[in-house]
């Protein structure tokens, strides 16, 4: 962020809002993010806008992960296209909903368009946690790309994967 950008922040509210949005979505490069942090540490106006935008975005993404219960199985499904990548919103959201005590969990990956090592690590951590509680965690509807990654990392040999929800739900009873 150069001097002209700093002037723009105060003269062009849409530019500032885009900067704030991209910062909160972690889309800024390291230098720009650092420059924006230095700026808001000294600018109360921009910080206030950042605070409100952060709460607002938290509200908007509350529906990002939909939870429903089918008998005793908790089914997690992303409301829209999701990325399970390092520091992504969706990964944090998945982490949040996992603070619940459920031990039978089915994660619908149908809308997950991208997953990286952080996302795979998170799934395995949740799997380990659920198994320690004598529970089960299974996956549903991974895209061909995600399925390939699960196979390459041999995660599919640990985490059961289904393409039919009814079959997936029945598997919890038969286990």
């Amino acid at each position, binding site marked *: 962020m150069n001097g002209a950008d700093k002037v723009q922040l105060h003269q062009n*509210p*849409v530019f500032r*809002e885009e900067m704030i*949005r991209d*910062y*909160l*979505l*972690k*889309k800024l490069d390291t230098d720009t*993010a*650092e420059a924006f*942090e*230095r*700026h*808001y*540490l*000294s600018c*109360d106006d921009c*910080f206030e806008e*950042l*605070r*409100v*935008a*952060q*709460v*607002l*975005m*938290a*509200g*908007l*993404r*509350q529906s*990002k992960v939909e939870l429903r219960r089918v008998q005793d199985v908790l089914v997690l499904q992303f409301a*829209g296209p999701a990325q399970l990548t390092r*520091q992504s919103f969706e990964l*944090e959201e998945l*982490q*949040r909903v*996992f*603070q619940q005590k459920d031990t039978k969990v089915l994660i619908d990956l149908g809308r997950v368009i991208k997953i990286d090592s952080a996302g795979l690590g*998170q799934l395995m*951590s*949740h799997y*380990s*946690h659920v198994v*320690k509680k004598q529970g089960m965690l299974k996956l549903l509807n991974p895209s061909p790309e995600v399925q390939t990654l699960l196979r390459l990392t041999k995660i599919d040999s640990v985490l059961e994967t289904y393409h039919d929800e009814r079959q997936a739900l029945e598997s919890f009873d038969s286990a």
Partner: protein
Amino acid sequence: MTVSPDALEAYRLKLRYKVYYHLGSSCPDAEDVVQETLTRFLRALQDEKIHNPESTAAFLSGICNNVIQEYRRRLWKEPLRDPDSSPPGCARDREPEMLELRQVIALIMGQLSQRDRGLLCAFYLEEKCREEICRTMGLSDVQFRVALFRAKGRFRKSYHETMKQNAPGEH
């Protein structure tokens, strides 16, 4: 150079955002990182290491970066926590606070019109560019700016009012 207690509190609040940004909102040690940053900052002030008041924010940000790096290195060296103790990345202390905040936000989101929600979602979550939103919603540039900030303003007003009502001692 001196810093007033009010300014120090403002720095603390702002540093929280920076720390949560870099360590994730579930980091259980975020407050410690903020506190350590402020401690080093005050020590630097005492030692008169900050010569230019205009560079205070940059100096503070630099200290915070160092503390975050040290924290990450320490995490890397320390053995993993017992997975039985809590789910990964879980900050149990903040759970009730976060639950209450989520309820408040859900209430406010319900008060926004469908159009406002649609506009805010398109801009903040779906990362659509201004041109695309204008085209989809049939808005001019000026109408887009007015609609965006009016929607954000409504949210801000409801949020502040609700938080004020929920504040301790106001019941």
